[in-house]
């Protein structure tokens, strides 16, 4: 510069009062959840997703009144396994598409990523913060209702579930929830980065989820191989869950080693993570 101006520092430097390292994702998650909670559809979906839980609690109540009903509908591990993998799975998919499809896609489409990355955040903070929004949302329709179901059932039917040995169901429910929500969250977030348009990401998610199950049935009919179950995300999750709850496996995947199902799900999560890291970084590079 040809002219030199003398400046004195007249401004005050500000330092944040909260140490950020290790918890920088929390504000992203908090603000994202705050934004989601302002939508009635989001709250409505959570409310509807809790109806089966209340239905099952009513069922438990009836079995305490009519003990002979336990022979038809026993309150056992399978009862809680079915509670997680039945209709609850549909709500989980709906929630994943609703809350997750736009999480990153919208930021990428509009350039909102810049708002985050011009703050003291790493890419990991951003991805983790977004994943936390989705995991909390998914837990609201899987983990939390199932834990409430267990605790409610335990208080309604202490003769059946009151013994300390049944407390093992809590880690089982948590483990099954992780098996269901982590790959789902990974997949929908990865699609969110790939599609940019939340609608396409949501549709793509349903297509992959449903399509993989159809492909599994076709492959199983053609080969009768239990490994065909690995094609289906749902069947793979279910097989891992069956092992956790030690319930009788489904016919098509009865001979599929559950370890293999778990390894497949872990691999799926890693692939999704790699996609996330590549794609979110790509926004910065290809503009």
């Amino acid at each position: 510069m040809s002219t030199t101006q003398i400046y004195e520092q007249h401004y005050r430097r500000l330092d944040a009062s909260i140490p950020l390292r290790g918890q920088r994702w929390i504000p992203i998650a908090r603000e994202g959840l705050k934004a989601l909670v302002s939508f009635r559809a989001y709250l409505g979906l959570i409310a509807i997703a809790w109806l089966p839980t209340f239905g099952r609690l009513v069922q438990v109540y009836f079995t305490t009144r009519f003990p002979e009903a336990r022979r038809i509908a026993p309150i056992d591990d399978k009862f809680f396994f079915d509670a997680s993998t039945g209709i609850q799975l549909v709500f989980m998919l709906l929630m994943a598409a609703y809350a997750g499809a736009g999480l990153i896609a919208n930021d990428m489409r509009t350039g909102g990523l810049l708002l985050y990355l011009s703050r003291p955040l790493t890419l990991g903070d951003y991805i983790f913060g977004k994943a936390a929004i989705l995991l909390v949302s998914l837990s609201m329709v899987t983990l939390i209702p199932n834990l409430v179901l267990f605790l409610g059932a335990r208080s309604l039917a202490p003769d059946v579930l009151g013994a300390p040995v049944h407390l093992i169901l809590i880690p089982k429910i948590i483990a099954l929830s992780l098996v269901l929500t982590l790959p789902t969250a990974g997949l929908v977030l990865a699609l969110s980065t790939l599609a940019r348009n939340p609608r396409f990401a949501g549709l793509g998610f349903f297509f992959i989820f449903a399509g993989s199950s159809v492909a599994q049935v076709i492959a199983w009919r053609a080969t009768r191989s239990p490994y065909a179950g690995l094609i289906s995300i749902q069947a793979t999750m279910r097989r891992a869950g069956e092992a956790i709850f030690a319930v009788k496996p489904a016919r098509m995947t009865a001979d599929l080693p559950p370890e293999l199902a778990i390894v497949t799900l872990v691999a799926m999560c890693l692939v999704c993570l790699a996609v996330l890291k590549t794609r979110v970084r790509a926004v910065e590079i290809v503009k």
Partner: protein
Amino acid sequence: MTARVVFEKASRWYGPVMALNDVSFELGPGVYGLLGPNGAGKSSLLKLASGQLRPSQGSVRLLGRPAFGSPDVFHSVGLCSDTDALFEDFTGLQFVMALLSLNGFDRATSEKLAIEAIETVDLKDAMHRKVGGYSKGMRQRIKLAQSLAHKPEVLFLDEPLTGMDPQNRKRISDLMKRLGDEGRTVLVSTHILHELEQVTQRVLLIHNGRVLAEGNLREIRDLLDRHPRSVRLQARDPRGLARELVGLPDLVSLNMEDATGHLVAEIRKPDAFFSRVQELAAVHGVQEMWVTDENLESVFSYLVSK
């Protein structure tokens, strides 16, 4: 000069497209204009400076650290980008507070700083309205508010005056000047020359990814004065006016458009020319006069050809 932003032979390309080519400069405290026509590489330069992009070659340092991959540096950096992405369902206040929370400020401090920044950009009346309902100028101001709310040492402003009315342009221009006078480093990108003149005399001229000129705006003005500019005149007596003008020493050419009856003059020293036209205005009924190519594109083309 304490250099806060340092480019050393920095280049950046997207596939085969060269966005920035071998750019070197240093910025200390004060306001700097980043001037260039659309597509010159201003946004790429700002993204490199603000650590959003990694340089393909060379280095970019911000507050003594590599700009890319040093997230902690953003405690002291503010960015008002050209993107129109905001949190549409948040109110203005919530929007600024949310971004302050990403800096690690607690709720009470975030609120205080957010209100301060919103007052600075004169949006207090609208701070409880949803950002989605803001006008273009208001969106621009709330973006500006979020960029300066945490009182950064270095501010990058990408076309900050776009969409603002004259009153707010003046207000924001004064604000930028004040921030520079306080000793902060403010880099303002724009493609409109006169916007910068109100704020700073120090500019970086960028064209086709290269820093073409770096220096005082007066020097750039001199370059402009050497570049023949086209002036269109509408007068009641264009022939009489042409007769008077034709003898001026800095006139390069003079033509009359048959279709419109306008005089089109190419001149080198606009100030002298404009004074002469003023003197003749009443006699020959000069109704309008406008410079037709006073855009940066033509100036840059001229500079590049030199």
